[in-house]
Every structure is written in C-alpha cells, then in structure tokens.
C-alpha cells in the first residue's frame, strides 16, 4: 500500500515550502525517522522525516520546487508497487492535491452535462443553466475563503464563483451586503477597477513594486527571493504600515554594568560557566522592566477586539544569519538567571546560524530586542516585530564626555531606542518603561535580586 508524503505544515504561517534538498534517492529503503529531505519554509530550513517504513518509490518534485502545503512530494511503498495511478491522479501540472483534483473534476463533469427539461423532477445535479460558462472551468483548488488574519470572508456563493473565475482575491474586496457580505456587485466593481492600487488600510504591495526600474541594459545579477526574505518583507511591511510607530531614545550610564559584568565573568571563567554579554544584561533588564509595564509586553489584536497583555515575558532576540534574520526566543526571561539567559541565547543563536531552530524556538515572543552595538552603531530605530507592541534597538557602549557634579569627566554610555506601536503604547508608557530599564542597567545589582 503506497504512502503519500505531502508537504507538511511546518510553521504557523507557512503556506508553501521549497524542497531545498533530497537526502534520499528513489529505491532507498526508508525507516520511520529517516530524514527524506530538507524543506525551506518561510522561517527556517527543516528536516522532512518519514513516519513509515518502505522504499522511496518516487520523488514527485525536484529540488528547488516550491509547493503548497498538502501537495504530494514523494511516494513510499513496497519495492515493486505500481504507483502509476497515484501519479496520474496528480495531473500534469501538479497544482493541486489528489483530493482537490478529484472533487473539482467531478463537479466539473457534472457541471458540463446538458440540462434535461424532460426530467423536471430530477434530483440529479446538472448544469442548471446550460449557459456554457461552467463547462469552461478548470479545476483549481478552492480559495481558502479567509482573509489575511484568518477570519472567514462572508461572500455570497455567486460572488465566490465570479471571484474564482476572474482570479479576484476576496480578501481584497469590501462587502456591501448585510454584515459585510461580499455580493456580486462588489466583485464586479473590483473586476471593473482592475487589481487593487491602494488599499483602504494601506497594505503596500511589497512584492510587486510599481516604480521604474533602472534600464534593463544595465548589468545586474538576479537573486531568488528566499522564503525568509518574503516573510521579512511581508511581516515588517505589514507592521510598519499598520502599526503607527514612534520612537524614544534614552542614553544609559553603563559604568556600573561594565564593572558588574567584569566581576561576573571573572567568576564565570573560574567556575567554567557561560560568560555574560552586555546584551544578556539588557535582556534581563528588559524582562524585569516588562513585568512592571504590561502594555509594552502586549499585542494589539483588532480581530479579537482586544489588547492582550501577556503574563509571561518571552524575549525575542534578533539574530543576523546568512539568509536574513531570525528572532529566537528566550522564554520566561524574567524568571531566568543571567547565566541561564546567556547560555540559552548563545545556544539558540548558534543553531539559528545552522538553520537548525524548531518553530517553537523562534515563535511566541512577547517583546523583541535588536542589537547592532557590535558594529559600532551608536543608535538606530527598529521596526516593531508583530504582534509585539514594542521593540528595543540597542546601540554600542561608547566612551563619551559626561558632566558629573559640574565637571566634564569620561563616561560609558549606551543609547537604546524603543519603537512603539502607538495603538497600544503611548509616549508616557514607553518613557516609563525606558526609565525602569535605565534604572536596572544603571544599578545592575538589582538584576541579581
């Protein structure tokens, strides 16, 4: 009995995956737990494990192919098994899963039969109109019927059909019927208008820029847009255009933090523990400060009609990797000691570099930090990482003259900038959070309590 291996859903936001590498060949014996292939999702490259025993009979897609969740990618079975029927079912273009193809084909066949007025009481489903339009429909996967936030789109059956025929994305259509139901005239109006130019709630079309490109003759290199880049583009554009950002910068005296860290790391060396970085101090300070300022540890959720303030503090730490960046999460950072935070951060960052993070390790942050201090960046602003309500951009510690008791003396200062989603965080709340953060870092012994 052949077993169909389909593209799995490997992350919450995954819609399609790229088969980046086959690790087994056709004809190879497969045992449960063997890694068949690597799949690049929108977030990470992950192993595709077999859950069954058998022989890898067929690789249905090639390395580099991008296919939607649920599409057949391989067949496992007994050595001499005939799987031609299964492969035939997939159709030439392989655009749809087996079930969808069958259903669509069945309804298509039903739809194209002639009406039979001579059997008026028939319950058989036929092309009711014989208008000829149905017969031309090609089987396609039915659109998911939900909008970008996963809400069900209310649309009349007719509106759905017209939208499907014209390739109109219902999530881009405003419904004028009761409770926002999308009806025929709404879809027709959208078809009339052509593709959406500017959205009511601005959703920039980041993947199809409309500006003039430099002369085609000018030499250039073309790079495929990786899943990760697409995700970064989508999420951050969405954040920047829907979350009204504002920024607050504070200059923190790091003298005591430097001294404390030196002391701690001396001990760490002696006792063979992970050394603590300035970033770890900031992570800990943020975690403790977030406990006191719940709106900075929050999400604005318009669909649920609520602002959610989280009882736990999970800090995402932006890590630059070859393909882009990823934010592994230190969970319950407020409850962890500095050494634990240091060890965990180091370990997550290392595995991030190796594309070896599991989705649960980079999902679920309630607050995010981004540190460019190591590049000598004095200060910068970051884009809020949705659905967080704020992100902290950490600059370099620098030697700078400061005024103390009326005297100019050498100082050690670090600028941090909080980017806030104004829908949740107001200026005063951001400022209060920064004030708390600052006092933790300026009196860092408090971080140890």
């Amino acid at each position, binding site marked *: 009995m052949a077993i169909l291996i389909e593209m799995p859903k490997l992350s919450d936001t995954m819609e399609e995956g790229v088969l980046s590498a086959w690790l087994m060949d056709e004809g190879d014996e497969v045992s449960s737990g063997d890694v068949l292939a690597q799949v690049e999702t929108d977030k990470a490259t992950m192993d595709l494990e077999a859950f069954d025993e058998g022989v890898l009979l067929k690789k249905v897609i090639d390395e580099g192919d991008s296919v939607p969740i649920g599409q057949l990618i391989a067949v496992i079975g007994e050595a001499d098994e005939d799987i031609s029927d299964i492969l035939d079912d997939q159709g030439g273009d392989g655009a749809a899963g087996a079930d969808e193809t069958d259903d669509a084909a069945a309804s298509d066949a039903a739809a194209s039969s002639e*009406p*039979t*007025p001579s059997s*008026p*009481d*028939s*319950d058989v*489903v*036929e092309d*009711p*109109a014989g*208008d000829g339009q149905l017969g031309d429909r090609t089987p396609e996967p039915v659109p998911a019927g939900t909008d970008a936030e996963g809400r069900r789109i209310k649309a*009349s*059956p*007719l*509106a*759905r*059909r017209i939208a499907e025929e014209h390739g109109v994305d219902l999530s881009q259509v405003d419904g*004028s*019927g009761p409770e926002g139901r999308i*009806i*025929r*005239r709404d879809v027709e109006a959208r078809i009339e208008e052509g593709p959406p130019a500017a959205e009511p709630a601005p959703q920039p079309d980041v993947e199809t820029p409309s500006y003039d490109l430099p002369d085609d003759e000018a030499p250039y290199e073309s790079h495929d847009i990786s899943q990760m880049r697409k995700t970064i583009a989508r999420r951050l554009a969405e954040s920047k255009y829907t979350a009204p950002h504002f920024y607050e910068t504070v200059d923190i005296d790091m003298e005591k933090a430097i001294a404390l860290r030196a002391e701690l790391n001396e001990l760490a060396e002696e006792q063979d523990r992970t050394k603590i970085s300035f970033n770890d101090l900031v992570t800990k300070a943020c975690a403790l400060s977030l406990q006191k300022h719940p709106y900075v540890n929050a999400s604005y959720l318009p669909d649920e009609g609520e602002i959610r303030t989280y009882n736990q503090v999970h800090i995402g730490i932006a890590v630059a990797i070859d393909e882009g960046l990823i934010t592994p999460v230190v969970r319950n950072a407020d409850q962890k000691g500095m050494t634990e935070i240091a060890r965990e951060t180091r370990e997550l960052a290392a595995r991030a570099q190796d594309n070896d993070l599991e989705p649960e390790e980079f999902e679920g942050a309630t607050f995010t930090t981004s540190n460019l201090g190591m590049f000598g960046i004095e200060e910068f602003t970051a884009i809020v990482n949705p659905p967080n309500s704020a992100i902290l951009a950490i600059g370099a510690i620098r030697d700078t003259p400061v005024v103390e008791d009326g005297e100019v003396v050498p100082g050690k200062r670090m600028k941090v900038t909080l980017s806030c989603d104004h829908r949740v965080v107001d200026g005063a709340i951001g400022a209060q959070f920064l004030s708390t953060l600052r006092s933790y870092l300026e009196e860092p012994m408090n971080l140890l309590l």
Partner: protein
Amino acid sequence: MATLQFREALRAAMTEEMERDDDIFLIGEEVAEYDGAYKVSKGMLDQFGPQRVIDTPISELGFAGLGVGAAMNGLRPIVEFMTFNFSYVGFDQVVNNAPNVRYMSGGQFEMPIVFRGPNGAAGQLAATHSNSTEALYSNFPGLKVVSPSIPDDGKGLLKTAIREDDPVIFLESELMYGLKDEVSEEADYTIPLGSARVAREGSDVTIVAHSKSHHVAMDAAEQLAEKGYEAEVIDPRTIKPLDIDAIVESVVKTNRLVVIDESNPFASVASEITHRVQDRAFDYLDAPILRVTAPDVPAPYAPNLMDAYMPGADETVDKCLRVLYAE
C-alpha cells in the same frame, strides 16, 4: 380564444373530457342538482344525466372511497370536495388508498382518479375552512398535485389530470372562480403536468408563486418595475411533479429568489423549492432565498388579522428589495 371565468374553464375541461370518454363521471356534494356549490358543474347534470353527475351525502370518506373503488374497476372518477378542508374527512382514501393501490398490487390496478375542489384561504372563513393542503398532499408518493392560477391553465391542466392513469389532486380557489381570462378553444387542449409557466420575464429577481399567490407576485412585479427592478415571475402550475428546471434556470439568470406560498411555512412548498434551488444553483445565488408565507398559526377570522395573515404584494416587494440589497 374565449374569455371565460375560471369556473367555466374548469367546466369546459370536464365537459369536453366526459364527451370524449364515457367512463368519466363527476361525484360530490351538490355537484348535480345544485350545479355545484361554486357553480363549477353548472348544467352538467342536464347534459350527462344522473348516472355520470352524482350528488352524494355529506360523507367524504364514503364517496372518496367509492371513487377509488370505481377507478380500480376501470372507471375514471372526478371526485369533487366542496372544499379541500373537507378532504381531511376522507383522508385515508385520498392518501393511503389512492396513491398506493398501483404500487401494492404490483401494477395490476391503475388509479385514474381526480380529487378536485377549492383549496386555501378564501376570506373570512376562519381556521378550519382556510387550510392550504398542497404541501400535505405533495408529501405522499404516488399523488400528483396541480394548482393553476389562471383559467387557461385550469382548463388545460384539468384535461390532462383527467387523462392521467394515477391519482391527481387538483387544487382550485373560491376566490378565483370568478376570474375572467382568455382560454384556449383548441380541440384537445392539454398542458403537461410538471411544466411551469414564465408569466413575466425579468433579469433582477425571480418570484415563484402558485395559485392565488401568483397574482400577488404579478402585483409585486409591477411595483418593483416602478422602482426599476425587473422581476421574473414563474408559476409552477403543478406542485408535484415540480418544474424545478424552469425555476433554476431563472435563478441562474437573476441570482435571487423569493417564493410566495400562502401555506403555513413549516415543510411547505416554499421550503421544498428553497431546498432544491440551493441544491441545484448554490453557486448562482447572490443572496439567501426568502419566502413570503402565512405565519405558523391557524388562519384568523377578523378581516384585519386575515390581511396580515395572507402573503401580500407589499411584503413580497420588501423581500425582493432585500435580496436585491436595495433596501
């Protein structure tokens, strides 16, 4: 074409058929000496004599059963109920014997019988005399149910019903017996069962209505036209078999449907049409199907309450505007 009252058209149908076939007879309360309670059979006793136009006692179960027995023995009875409210007294013969005899005898017996008479509300007759029976009788396999709205259809369909070799429930209306309209004088004029009539063409909304409600639909269509909407009005004419193809074809064009049915709403003809249309034309509907029916209560007596009870053109227009999203 001749201009005839509905009752005259029905009489013409029976008379023509009885002239054609000696096995056909009419039986019922007051059909003979009194010329029929609503004068449908006026003059028929004189023409065909007491052997073929037969008065009965007030005994629906008895004469309905007599009809069933006569049909089993090769005659072709037309059984008149003074109104279909009284058919309930003869219920067993109508629903349990007539439609099942052919089936239970393995086809040895045919059942060429027509039960006819006025159906539905007819003004201030109160609850027990205002029953709409079409959904009820349509529920029994083996019964055909006919419910015309204009005299011409009445004539053509009654002639067809009389020629059927299976039982037909033929539903008329007290309020329409005086309705005058053109009626075909064509020799052998019949209209097949299960064939709807598109009474008015339109592309904006489909209104399906039978019997009296058909005229409500036509009024509503006039009002809608004044508002700039063209309603397509379909009279199914026979409830069973139902010409669902004609209705579906219209809904595919208009994408909206309002069904008027003066029956009580639960498990009504309107329910059945609604079900079948969503089944056959789901992808063509731009709005939920709405119904205009009597409420789920017994018919009242007071005239103001009766007005509120019966489906009306205003309510139909309102519901059409709703499915047009034009409120």
